[in-house]
């Protein structure tokens, strides 16, 4: 595991001067990922907040080679870069060892980019795909995605008079990725920098595809003050809303088992996207339903990890 003493000596590969909102989780994740990378990397990003805020012409915050082409295809685009690399390396035209990292938001990964991601994993490209998962389409102004949690208010799953936020539970993308028999997949959180950086280093050693689903926090979309980004991300882990785990060579490892699982209410009540639940006549029922689903998924994970 890289220590902060080591990481701080490395050059920041995402510069300041990008236009992300104050307290944006995505840029914290990118910084941690790039600091951890033990090889030179080429980065791709899908259309989304991250790409927009970091590459407003004529300014780029990237100090590594970077490509963005469209929304649904960062996995295919970076797969192309990686294939070009393999071809040129074999011909002796490239000498360096380079690794390839794709960043996609949850919209670009869970929804519109799922097919390209699945294809790239199945074909076995040596790439690390990182989903910076802030659980909604934030770039277009907070619309629901299949990563949006149950009951969360978004502009397309509003807390209405009849339907209180998103009617469905979120999709378990990490499990879908694991179903590809991928060599390495993990869930991580920006609050646990040591866990995330360790996972990035592991993933970059994998000779094949790897995937890390990192819960990001969007202060604007989640309705939390900008200084709460890390704290909320931590609570997500402590409540088992977002378990930290790895899937490596066919085995599940849970990286953090909270000694005492905090009730989900503690996570929900701090965010405006869930505020309406607490004013709802069925408040207790709704919270119980959410808790039950979290417990069910956590138990299932515990079982898988044996």
């Amino acid at each position, binding site marked *: 595991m890289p220590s*902060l*003493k080591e*990481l*701080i*000596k490395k050059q*920041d590969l*995402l*510069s*300041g*001067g*990008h*236009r*992300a*909102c*104050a*307290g*944006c*989780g995505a*840029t*914290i994740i990118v*910084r*941690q990922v790039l*600091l951890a990378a033990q090889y030179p990397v080429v980065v791709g990003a899908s259309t989304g907040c991250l790409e927009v805020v*970091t*590459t*407003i*012409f*004529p*300014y*780029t*915050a*990237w*100090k*590594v080679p970077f490509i963005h082409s469209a929304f649904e295809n960062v996995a295919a685009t970076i797969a192309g870069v990686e294939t070009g690399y393999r071809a040129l390396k074999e011909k002796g035209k490239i000498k360096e060892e380079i690794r390839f990292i794709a960043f996609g938001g949850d919209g670009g990964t869970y929804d519109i980019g799922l097919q390209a991601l699945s294809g790239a994993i199945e074909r076995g490209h040596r790439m690390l795909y990182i989903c910076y998962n802030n659980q909604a389409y934030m770039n277009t102004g907070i619309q629901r995605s299949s990563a949006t949690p149950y009951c969360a208010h978004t502009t397309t799953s509003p807390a209405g008079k009849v339907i209180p936020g998103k009617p469905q539970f979120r999709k378990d993308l990490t499990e879908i990725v694991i179903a590809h028999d991928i060599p390495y997949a993990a869930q991580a959180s*920006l609050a646990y*920098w040591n866990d995330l950086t360790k996972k990035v280093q592991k993933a970059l050693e994998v000779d094949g595809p790897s995937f890390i689903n990192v819960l990001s926090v969007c*202060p604007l979309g989640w309705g939390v*003050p*900008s*200084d*709460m*980004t*890390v*704290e909320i991300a931590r609570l997500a882990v402590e409540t088992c809303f977002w378990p930290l785990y790895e899937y490596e060579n066919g085995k599940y490892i849970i990286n953090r088992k909270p000694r005492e699982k905090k009730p989900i209410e503690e996570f929900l009540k701090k965010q405006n996207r869930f505020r309406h639940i607490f004013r709802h006549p069925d408040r207790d029922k709704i919270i119980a339903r959410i808790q039950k689903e979290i417990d069910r998924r956590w138990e299932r994970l515990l079982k898988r990890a044996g």
Partner: protein
Amino acid sequence: MKEGWRKLPLGAIIPEAGSAEKFHTGDWRSERPIYHPDKCIQCLICFIYCPDSAIKVEDGKVVGIDYDFCKGCGICAKECPPKAGAITMEREMK
């Protein structure tokens, strides 16, 4: 004056890595973090959580805040260990 189209690199490439450093986001701040070196225990936590690469580092040590880029999110102050309390937030004077 911005360049005309004949001067721009083909394919809308940005050839200068990290050129965003020329764009200062410091004036977005409504609150300003103040670094107190005497209290700092060099745990480096602020460095790893800052979203804006705005913690100034020298020789592997935190030395202050880069106000050119700091947006005043307050994460550094919040995550700085309470026993140290080496970063505090103040209202930004404009």
